[in-house]
């Protein structure tokens, strides 16, 4: 378990500079300290898992990263430039895309309309400026096909897609719009086995394109399946970052639970947790 992520020798991935670096982030809501000093970074082409139990501060942290909250203390740098996000829009423009748990998808709208929601391509001159519908339809179908999903048509409503497919639409959308860092908030928490493996495969595909993925989960097995590095958050603090192979599932599990009762539970449940 290494506390400091800057000392890695010879590892080609570790040699690349982080895209985003967050140091000693604190976030207070009134008298509640939600984050009490969290440090985290993401490099291109890696999947960095952020693990933590419910209430550990995962959501608050990624909301800070994606511009929803402003940190009370701490610094955020992108390519070594200090950043100050005022809104999710600012973060998006800096290349930080977030796929929230609710996916920001509208079931009644078509895949195409969802795909381009808020960022519709236009053509034509001003009073007659209109959406480039043909281009939108082609792009949506093509991008989904690349992710392994064949749509019935570009006008298929998102409501008819399965949970895993919706997740994939959200990821494809973020990547298409030039995300350098993709934050996935519990993407597998509500999915079945097969859908989960599809989403994990999508994460792998996105990572290979050089996007840095932040994978938030409280499921150690899902995290270990795709993660390159693992950071555990507990009671608003980072407990440390580990490289893949340096840590066992049991150690991760213990860290997430704060290293306490898990040992006893494990005993009574026969090591199945």
């Amino acid at each position, binding site marked *: 378990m290494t506390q400091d992520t800057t000392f890695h020798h010879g590892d080609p991935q570790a040699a690349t500079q982080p895209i985003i670096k967050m140091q000693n982030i604190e976030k207070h809501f009134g008298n509640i300290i939600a984050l009490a000093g969290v440090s985290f970074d993401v490099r291109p082409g890696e999947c960095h898992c952020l693990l933590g139990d419910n209430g550990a501060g995962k959501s608050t942290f990624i909301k800070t990263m994606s511009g929803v909250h402003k940190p009370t203390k701490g610094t955020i740098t992108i390519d070594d430039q200090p950043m100050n996000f005022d809104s999710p829009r600012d973060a998006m423009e800096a290349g930080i895309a977030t796929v929230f748990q609710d996916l920001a998808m509208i*079931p009644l709208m078509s895949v195409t309309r969802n795909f381009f929601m808020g960022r519709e391509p236009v053509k034509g001159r001003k009073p007659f400026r209109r*959406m480039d519908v043909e281009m939108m339809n082609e792009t949506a179908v093509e991008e989904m096909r690349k992710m392994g999903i064949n749509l019935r048509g570009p006008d298929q409503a998102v409501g008819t897609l399965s949970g895993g497919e919706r997740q994939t639409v959200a990821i494809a959308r973020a990547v298409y719009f030039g995300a350098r860092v993709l934050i996935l908030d519990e993407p597998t928490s509500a999915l079945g086995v097969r859908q989960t493996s599809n989403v994990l495969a999508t994460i792998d595909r996105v990572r290979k394109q050089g996007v840095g993925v932040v994978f938030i989960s409280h499921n150690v097995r899902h995290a270990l399946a795709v993660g390159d590095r693992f950071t555990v958050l507990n009671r608003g603090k980072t407990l440390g970052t580990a490289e893949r192979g340096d840590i066992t599932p049991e150690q991760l599990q213990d860290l997430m639970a704060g290293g306490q009762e898990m040992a006893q539970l494990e005993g009574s449940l026969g090591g199945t947790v």
Partner: protein
Amino acid sequence: MADAAQTVDDERLKKEGLGARLMKRPELGAIAGVILVTTFFLITADSSMFTLSGIMNFMTPAAQLGILAIGAAMLMIGGEFDLSIGSMVAFAGLIFGACVVTLGLPLILAIPLTLAVAAGLGALNGTIVLKTGLPSFIVTLAFLFILRGASLVGLKLASGGSTQLRGVRDAVEGDWLAPMFSGDAFGPVFAWLAQVGVIDTFKNGTPKVPGIPVEILWFVALALVATYVLLRTPQGNWVFASGGDRTAASNSGVPVRKVKISLFMVTAMCGALVAIITVMDAGSTDARRGFMKEFEAIIAAVIGGCLLTGGYGSAIGAFFGAIIFGMVTIGLTYTNFDQDWFQIFLGGMLLIAVLFNNYIRKRVTGER
């Protein structure tokens, strides 16, 4: 490989027929309704209903309602209601009447002023709804009474104690803008058509239909513009998104607040436009103008396929919804039925439309 398996056609996906695809258009119900109502009146009504003058007869009230219904439909797609549009018609009528009669302003000033006041009130409605997070239903219900009351009080002030303000016709007489908002368009064309015998004429040779009432042109133009905006512009996509899921939309960078407030303003301005047209037509304005129109407009929008929950619907649907309305109100006078069947018919139509829309929504979203 999992990828390869996914790219083959899904064997559990049945081919969709034309019928199933048509079912997914929001305006289908309204078009079916128009066909149904037309058939009904073709059988029961006097044949004069479907002559040119008969059609103009029922299209005029349909257009007046339809202008409101298109505004209401866009607002409903955006996820909000406006129950104050009926009262807005009365209030805008008062503003307009006061501008031209009491202040003696020319139309070029009076019309923009009326529209601006309406837009301001719409923005106020919208801002209260969005700032407080209260349902638009309750906020605009308050404005239903406030504006109706303000119209009464204002009319008494402007006319010196009466609830009617007369003299609009004399005041706008000869104004160069008047033909855009009152009377009939294409008069010469119709006169020519009468001359060559294409349309019926009175004994003295003047055509029975002197032209197309301007409100019908406004109605058609608004329906086309609204449909274009909804289906072909980014702003239209934002309207659907804002109504479908507010949080999801704003997380995706849609300016939900601006979209909703603009929709409230557009709806209020639709009310003002109806006020201007009907006040100039009648030559006076009174406090009962637009009474109950908010409900009729919402009903027309719902018949047109708008979901009460927002995010789904169409302006063309509301267009046909309003035509159904006009046909039934006026059409019953051409039949032997008692006119008061109208309300029963209306309620029934609304119930069927809501059930139908609900069913369609489940099909679209794949809910079972």
